[in-house]
Structure formats: C-alpha cells, structure tokens
C-alpha cells in the first residue's frame, strides 16, 4: 500500500531504463558530467576555453580508463580547491589514469594528493608527489612481474605494489629488489613487509 499523500514511486527498473535510454539516444549525454567539471573549474577561476577543454579531456580519459566518477569528481573538486592550476590538474588526472590503465592502485595518488592538501604543501609539490607515486608504483609492477616469472605467487597485487613502491621511494631500485629476493628470498632479503602478499608455494626452487 502506498500511503496517501505521497507520490507513487516510479518503479526502479523503469527509471533505470529511462535514464539508460537517455544516454543511448543522445550522443551528447556524456557531456553531462563534463559540463559539471567545467562548472567546478570556473568556480575556481579556470575559465579559458582551452584550459577547460584540456581538463575535460583528461577527466573523460580517467573515466574511460575505469575510475568511477563518484570518486573522481570530488577528487577534482578538492584539487581545484587546493589551487592546482590547469596543467597541474591535468597532470594529476593523467597520472591517475595511467595507474588505472596499468592495473595499479590509482587511489594511492588520490590519497597522496589529499595528504599534501591537508599538510598545505604547494601545488607543485603535490604534483611531484603524485608523479613520484606513478614512477614507484610502475617500477613495483615490473618487480612483481619478475617475481612471478621466478615462481612467486602474488596474493595481493595492489598492496604488494604499494609496499614495494615504498621500498623504491626509499632508494631501492626494482632490479635490485628482484636480485635480492632471488638470492635470499623475501624474508632473507629483509623485505619482510611483503610477506603474506607475495610468497613462494615451494620454499626454494630446485635447481
């Protein structure tokens, strides 16, 4: 029974169908989201059409790569609030997109950028920190791929990449980590933070 005086709710499936057909029928529909990004930019003083177009493009690319808009839009709002300029916004979006495309934890960049904001780091430093994360996470992926070819099982790819990226930021190179683990094993090489995330089903490879 629908209580009197309240509008009858539109059945969910029907609503979904209407919305979906709206997107399918009107090719301009995806611009719906982009327009709101334009508005965000304008609110924060980015008004030139060329700049808006660059951010819009980077934003769309991030969504196309698979970053959910529910995360992306508040993130962009935050970085605009922190006064990143157009190029810096674009760069941070590109970094996130590239991580997402590589299957790496892009949200680490979101978190790093927000950390910089809370700590009132300059926009330039924030972008630098995001780029450093891209580099260290990419190197981590190479390390994990190498470990897999050596018979290691990566049980927790994203967290393992995260932990490895910390080692790399601390100064280890990817090949160095691979060599050390190859020679001594994970524990033996001192990369104990990785244990549980990466392991070797057979304790030591028979030669």
């Amino acid at each position, binding site marked *: 029974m629908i209580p009197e005086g309240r509008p009858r709710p539109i059945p969910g499936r029907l609503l979904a169908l209407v919305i979906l057909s709206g997107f399918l029928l009107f090719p301009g529909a995806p611009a719906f989201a982009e327009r709101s990004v334009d508005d965000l930019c304008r609110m924060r003083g980015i008004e030139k059409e060329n700049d808006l177009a660059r951010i819009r493009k980077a934003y769309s690319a991030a969504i196309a790569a698979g970053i959910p808009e529910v995360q992306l839009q508040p993130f962009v709002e935050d970085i605009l609030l922190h006064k990143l300029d157009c190029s810096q916004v674009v760069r941070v979006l590109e970094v996130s997109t590239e991580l997402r495309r590589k299957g790496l934890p892009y949200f680490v960049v979101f978190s790093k950028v927000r950390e910089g904001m*809370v700590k009132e780091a300059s926009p330039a430093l924030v972008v630098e920190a995001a780029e450093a994360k891209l580099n260290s996470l990419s190197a981590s992926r190479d390390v994990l791929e190498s470990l897999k070819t050596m018979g290691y099982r990566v049980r927790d790819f994203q967290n393992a990449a995260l932990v490895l990226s910390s080692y790399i930021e601390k100064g280890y190179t990817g090949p160095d980590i691979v060599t050390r683990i190859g020679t001594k094993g994970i524990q033996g090489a001192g990369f104990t933070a990785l*244990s549980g995330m990466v392991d070797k089903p057979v304790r030591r490879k028979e030669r």
Partner: protein
Amino acid sequence: MDTHDCRKFEELIARYVHGEILRHEREVLERHLAECPGCTVLYGEVVETDRLIRSLPPADVLPPPWLHARIMANLPEGAHRLSWFAGWGRWGWSMAATSVGAILAVLLMRGGQTPSPVRTAAVSPSSVSSAAHEAPRALPGSVLPAVPPPAPAPAPVAVPAPVTVARNADVPDAAPAVASAVKVIHEIKIYLYAPAAQRVAVTGDFNGWDAKGVELKPSGKPGMWETDLELKPGAYAYNFIVDGDVLVPDPDSPNQMPDGFGGTDSILLVKEGAPA
C-alpha cells in the same frame, strides 16, 4: 667402492642434491653412482628427505602479539638511551618541555585467529602548544567515498582499496583460505600518550587524510588516549593530529617514510592473519 672412498663423495652428493656442482664433478659423481649401489641409495634417501621437507606446509608460527612490547619494555635504559625526538626538529618543539611515555598498541583480530604481529607503539609530546606551526586549513569534501573502489580489471587479485575503510563490517570474520576479494577487517587499537593535549586524532590513507581525522578518546589512564581503527590488510600512511592543527608522525612507530612534502609519514602495515 669401499666406504672410505665413498666418504669422499659425500660432499659432492650434498652439492649435487642442491644442483650446486660443477660439470666435471658431476661427471665424476655420476660415474661413481653408476657403480656404487650404496651411494645411489644414499643419494635417493637424501633427495627424498629434501623433497619431504620442502613439501611441508608452512607452519604459521607467529610470536604472540604482546611479545614485541614485552621485549621493548625490557630493554635496559642507560647507555643506549637516546631521545625519541631526534627527528622532530622541524616542529620546533623544545625537547626539555616534552615528556614521553611509551605505550603499547596491540593488533587485535576478530574471530579468534592467530594474531598478527604487534602493532606499533605511539608516543606523543605533551607540549604541542609550543609548536610554531601554522594550522592546516580544514578542507571540506576531502573524505573519500565509503565504498571501496572496485579493483581494476587487469589486477590478478581483486582487493579493496587500502585508502578506504569499510566502517560497517561487510565481510565475514573468518579469514579466507586464499587471497580473494573479501578481506578480513582487523581491529587496530591505537594508543597515544599526550598528557597536555586537549584533542588527539589520527588521520591517514585509511580515511583519505580527512582533516579532522578519527578522534582518540581518553583511555582512563592519565594522559593516555586511544581509539580503534577497523582496517583491511594493507599499508597505511598516517599522522596524528594533536590539538586540531598539528600533524605529526608517530614517533615510536618503527616504520617511517618521508612524506614527499618535507615531513614524515608513519606506516601502519596490516597483514593478513594466518589462515585459520
């Protein structure tokens, strides 16, 4: 071959078992094995034992959670004593004005599993009000959505994002036998000794560096603050927020990293428990 001669081959067989033998040695040994049944049997037995040991399932022998703290508590003071504040210069705190207490924070796990290793201790200065540090501005809307982002398709193992925390325990308490999309939530108790502080909070990757952070409550012991964090396995950078405006690393955490902004992050590593 008599026993005396066979003794000479012992080391060769030992290395042969592990594949660490030169080609010419291998030829000599294989010739010997071909004509010495005793050594062939011995070789077979040792290879079999090697295989048996290697096929043992890993024994998840973990130290009890309190052992770490007990060891630290038993370290004698004196000659090795050094200030805990060595790395705190940038906050401009007067060493003389600070007092310190070492506290234990124990990683508790739900479901009565074998516990993970002990979490870090947390120590804070008592006179943070002396810090000559500009207060960070509160940033609205900086909290990540509460829903963990889906793992990217190419990732071989789908895991929830370490930056978000499912506050409603939406996963079962039992540890999965293998890594899977479902992760056990670990309850981490964090203590902080900060007798002069009015407000203490912790913020970090687990809450998207929310400017307000998760508040610690007075624990009942003088100067002691505490809170529980529910975290999935992962690595989390974090800082304490003392009296609302000062972000500081956990000076007693064993895991510290430059934060890329001129400061330091403490890293909390939440590991999978041992399979039940």
